[in-house]
């Protein structure tokens, strides 16, 4: 290496310091009793061996963003990103899945695809045998055929849904021959809830009602009363039926 290092300003023992300059007068380093001082920019990256500077040697806040080259921070180096650090929009292709617990708002009707309906309990039952009852006695209709019972909530001619909510219930009772009156009534928990009375000579009465059922103990049944000597109800799917579905969950 050409050139001459000129040693100058070596002070006395009482000062205990000296400065080393190049032959052009540039200060290379200085030494005092406690430190060796090197001017800014004197040590280039080429002078530092790989692995020589470890993280513990870097003071907090020392490396600024300007010192990080584009593309040098990989995904593996990112643990999390605060919401406040996201300034653009996240597009759908960047979302792989969202947990239910992360959805705090409501899903609107517009966000539900066409043709998507609820999967709440629903049933259709009917009587296929003609059965007699006592005129003037409110009698529970026996439905021996279950056409649908999506949630296995219909048994013994009683619908006891296991999902709480508002149910649209309807039923019909056909009479074997003309009767002076027919009364079809939806019973809830053993008591009359809603009924339809037909006083004219008729062959059938039907009832439809919206009823809240608690999803555990509440149940509905269909009763009928005939005000005449005619005491048979018809075993016919089109006349004597009982059906319902969850219209709105609780």
């Amino acid at each position, binding site marked *: 290496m050409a050139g001459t290092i000129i040693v100058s300003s070596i002070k006395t023992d009482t000062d205990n310091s000296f400065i080393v300059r190049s032959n052009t007068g540039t200060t290379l380093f200085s030494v005092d009793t406690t430190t060796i001082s090197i001017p800014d920019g004197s040590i280039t990256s080429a002078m530092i061996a790989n692995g020589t500077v470890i993280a513990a040697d870097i003071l907090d806040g020392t490396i600024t963003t300007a010192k990080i080259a584009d593309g040098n921070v990989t995904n593996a180096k990112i643990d999390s990103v605060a919401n406040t650090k996201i300034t653009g929009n996240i597009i759908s292709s960047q979302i792989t899945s969202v947990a239910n617990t992360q959805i705090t708002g409501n899903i609107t009707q517009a966000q539900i695809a066409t043709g998507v309906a609820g999967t709440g309990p629903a049933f259709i039952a009917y009587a296929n045998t003609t059965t007699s*009852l*006592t*005129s*003037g*006695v*409110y*009698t*529970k*209709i*026996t439905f021996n055929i279950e056409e649908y019972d999506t949630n296995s909530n219909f048994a013994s*001619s009683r619908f006891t849904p296991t999902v709480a909510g508002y149910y649209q219930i309807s039923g019909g009772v056909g009479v074997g021959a003309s009767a002076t009156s027919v*009364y079809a*009534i939806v019973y809830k928990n053993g008591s*009359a809830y809603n*009924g339809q009375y037909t006083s004219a000579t008729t062959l059938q009465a039907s009832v439809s009602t919206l009823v809240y059922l608690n999803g555990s103990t509440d149940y509905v049944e269909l*009763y009928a*009363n005939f*005000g005449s000597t005619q005491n048979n109800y018809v075993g016919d799917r089109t006349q004597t039926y009982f059906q319902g579905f969850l219209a709105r969950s609780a």
Partner: protein
Amino acid sequence: MTLPEKIISLYPELTDEDFGLRGTILLQNDSDGRGDYIAKWEHPTLARPTEEQLAD
């Protein structure tokens, strides 16, 4: 004789308005094998018939 007929024979003064969901007497059958029975008797003057009176 049916249950309504037995009750009418005991109390001929009863009318159709006394029976039913809006009346004071409700006769019911839950199709559970128990048969017709008096589910409600709230008549203001007539006593509820006894089992003996209603027996065949």
